[in-house]
Every structure is written in structure tokens, then in C-alpha cells.
């Protein structure tokens, strides 16, 4: 799988939500694109990641 431009090994069936949590993302401060499409925030738990997926996670930090 491609994650933010880098190749990552997927060792098991894992949902997008689990993957994001294991990688310490704060779900309330990110936007996620999977294979070129935005993933609605309410569906992170339902999306199962696949070997050929291209995943892009954008995190926001405070200040403006």
C-alpha cells in the first residue's frame, strides 16, 4: 500500500479507522483521501484497506 507517498506493508485485514489509530492520528484533525477520493469521516470504520490502495492523510495543526 502507498501511504503519504511511501510504500507500507499491510500484514493483516485492517480498517482505515484502525490504521489511523495505530499511526496515532487524531481523527478530528485530519482529512483522508483513498485512491483519489475523499473518505467521508463517518465511514472510516467501514473501509477495509487493500494492498493496492493509495492512502493520503492530511493533518491540521492549530493557528491562523
Amino acid at each position, binding site marked *: 500500500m502507498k501511504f503519504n507517498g511511501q510504500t507500507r506493508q499491510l500484514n493483516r485485514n485492517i480498517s482505515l479507522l484502525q490504521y489511523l489509530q495505530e499511526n496515532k492520528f487524531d481523527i478530528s484533525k485530519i*482529512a483522508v483521501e483513498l485512491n483519489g477520493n*475523499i473518505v467521508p469521516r463517518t465511514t472510516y470504520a467501514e473501509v477495509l484497506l487493500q494492498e493496492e490502495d493509495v492512502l493520503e492523510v*492530511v493533518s*491540521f*495543526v*492549530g*493557528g*491562523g
Partner: protein
Amino acid sequence: MHITFNGQEMETNCSTVAELCAYLGKQGDVLIINGYQARADHRLTEEDVITVIAKGVMPAEAELESMMAARHTPQVHARVKAAAVAVAGLGGLGSNLALMLARTGVGKLLLVDFDIVEPSNLNRQNYYISDLGLPKTIALEQQIKKINPFIKVQTRTVRVEEANVPELFSGCEVVCEAFDDPGAKAMLVNTILERLPGVKIVAASGMAGYASSNLLRTERKMKNLYLCGDFENEARAGNGLMAPRVQICAGHQANMALRLLLGIEEV
């Protein structure tokens, strides 16, 4: 010959700009011919576009238009004038980038913020002591009217929430995300990308403190999402928001918005 003088097309037999000005009884201090500053003895040629600016005088709309077109080139000016851009959040990023877009001549600006101007804003936000207590939407609208009274400014003094995002931003080509709170940034970006597929969003993340200016950049993160900032320097105790980096980041956002309006999708 056929020329355009201060936005009006006309026929003339005058041979120089000075002669034309004398004939029209128009006194000017600054002369712009075909987009460049020129001298009064410039010899007129067919299809010249001439703008004569009197210093210290409020120009008529057509004159201001022709000056802007002369500065920005007519094609760019026309495209930008026809555009509608929203600025969500009118703090350090939003107040500065809204004014840049106004100076650029963006024809329709939607300004959205729920808050009022308070003293701690003045270290980086484009407001004055005289604005204290005013809604930021109103204070900024007043400033824009002083820069270009012909821009159509729409203000919405509301808190942006998931439920009102489609109604607020559906008519805009580009939305500039300029919130402070990272959760609000993510909410706006997600909601626009999910619900308004035709809208491009130029967001910001990481511009606090005084780390190198050169860390601030623009990246295209998704098809409709551009992100400006250094992506890591968050506002916190010991690393506060300061005018220079906030304005550099606002400049990144304004320039990316401008590029998108001109049909350029590369950063």
C-alpha cells in the same frame, strides 16, 4: 485611430497622449499605456489602451477598472473580476488574504466569521484600534470598500459548522480556509470535499512562531485540496502566532487562489 482612454473606447486624430489629454481636458499625474507606465510624449498608435491617473482623486469605476486591467493585464483582470472567492475565518490568515484578494480585484468576496475584533488580534490581524468590538466581517468589509468600492462583498457573521457549509459556500469557485482551530479546519475541508465536489479549497496548517520563512510552502494534497504552511509549527505557548509568518502563509493562500481562478492547478 481607435483607442481606449480611461476605460472608454473612442476615435481620435491626436498624435500624442499629451495632445489627447489637452483635447479632452484631462489632467493626469500618472500615465499608463498598454499596461506600462509611459511619458506624455508617447506617440499614439491604433488600439492603444491609455489610462491617465490623477493623484489624490477618487477615480470613477471605469477608470479604476482600466487601471487595474493595466496593472494586471486585461485578460487576468477580467477573469479575476468574474470570480467568487470565500474566506472562512477572518483572523491572521483571513483578514490578510481577503485584502490581498480585494487588491487583486476578485469581483465577489464572501467573508465569514462569527467573532469580533479584540486587542489580542492586533499583533497579526489586519484590524485597527478603531475596529475593536466590531464584527470582523464588518470591519473587513469597511476596509475593502476603502481599497476598491466596486468589489461585491458579502458578509456572514456566523459560526461555520458542518450543517451550514453547503449553503454558505456552494456558489464559490475557491474557498480559503483560514480558521485557527485544527478541528474546525478539518471539519471545513472534509465537508467541502464531501459535499461540494466542484469547489476547490486552499487551506493552511503550521505558520506559528518565527522559524524560517522558507519552510512555508504550498502543496496540492488532494484533487481539490491545496495546503499552505510548514505543516508542523502549531500555535502554542512559547510558539505564538506572529505577523510575518502568518502573512507569508496568507500570501501563499491568496496566490494559490489566484492561480486557480486563472485555471492553473499546479502549485
